[in-house]
């Protein structure tokens, strides 16, 4: 049985050594905070592993990745609050790959209403 424990331990260490990936962390995003002004083309969705919305800035449609649904809702961002066509200002960390118009979103402002999705990152 000793071989099994040694093999298992080696496998566990290999798995633990796998470097952190982008998705749930911020490793795939820029350090710098980017500010965008755009119009909403798809309102907040609280479905899936994290909330999302889409805005149009110039000719580009940006995918905004928000916090997990429950946290996004706690920040006050409920589905349907910001209508399609509304003008918004958003701040966040854009994808390191500038070919992707994707941003992890820290803050959204619509009119006088501010939503602090990740206050600790502002």
């Amino acid at each position: 049985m000793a071989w099994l424990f040694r093999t298992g331990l080696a496998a566990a260490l290999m798995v633990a050594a796998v470097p952190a990936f982008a998705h749930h962390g911020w490793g795939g995003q820029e350090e710098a905070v980017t500010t965008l002004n755009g119009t909403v083309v798809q309102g907040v969705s609280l479905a899936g592993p994290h909330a999302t919305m889409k805005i149009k800035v110039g000719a580009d449609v940006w995918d905004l990745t928000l916090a997990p649904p429950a946290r996004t809702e706690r920040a006050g961002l409920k589905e349907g609050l910001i209508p399609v066509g509304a003008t918004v200002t958003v701040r966040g960390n854009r994808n390191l790959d500038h070919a992707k118009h994707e941003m992890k979103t820290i803050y959204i402002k619509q009119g006088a209403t501010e939503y602090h999705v990740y206050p600790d990152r502002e």
Partner: protein
Amino acid sequence: MSSSLAHFFAWLEHSPLGVFVRSLGVWSYGVINLVHILGIILLFGSILILDLRLLGAWRQVPLAVLSRPTTTMAQIGFVLAVSSGIPMLSVKTTDYIGNPFLLIKFPAIALALLNVWLVHRSTAWRAHRTRDLLPTENRRLARGAALSLAFWLTAITAGRMIGYW
């Protein structure tokens, strides 16, 4: 990714299932994900024990004793994983268009199931509950066990990486 698969993904996302799952509230994805993980734990945990036995571990435990509980629990785990996996996929299916890990995961599952079918119809598997197996029969089952671990580990690894693409 082929356009027919993209069409299927769009269909799944806009299906009544997708609409329903998206309407279930902010904790729903986490809960469905939990069921998926529990299913994978049952499936792979049971398979790991059976496959290691077939590869030569715990020879003092009769295979006939181990095979029934492990295959039953693996079947329950598989049903849980599929019945939670399809709703998870339906939430934002079109997000996965172009995700290469999906194209590794599902063929790996297909190969794993094909291997299960081939092992279960083998003479060795059919005989293991009624008599001692011949060395060639033990080797047949050991080959099946090695393939099983390779296919399921590939499916689980690719599945985990889908979210990190």
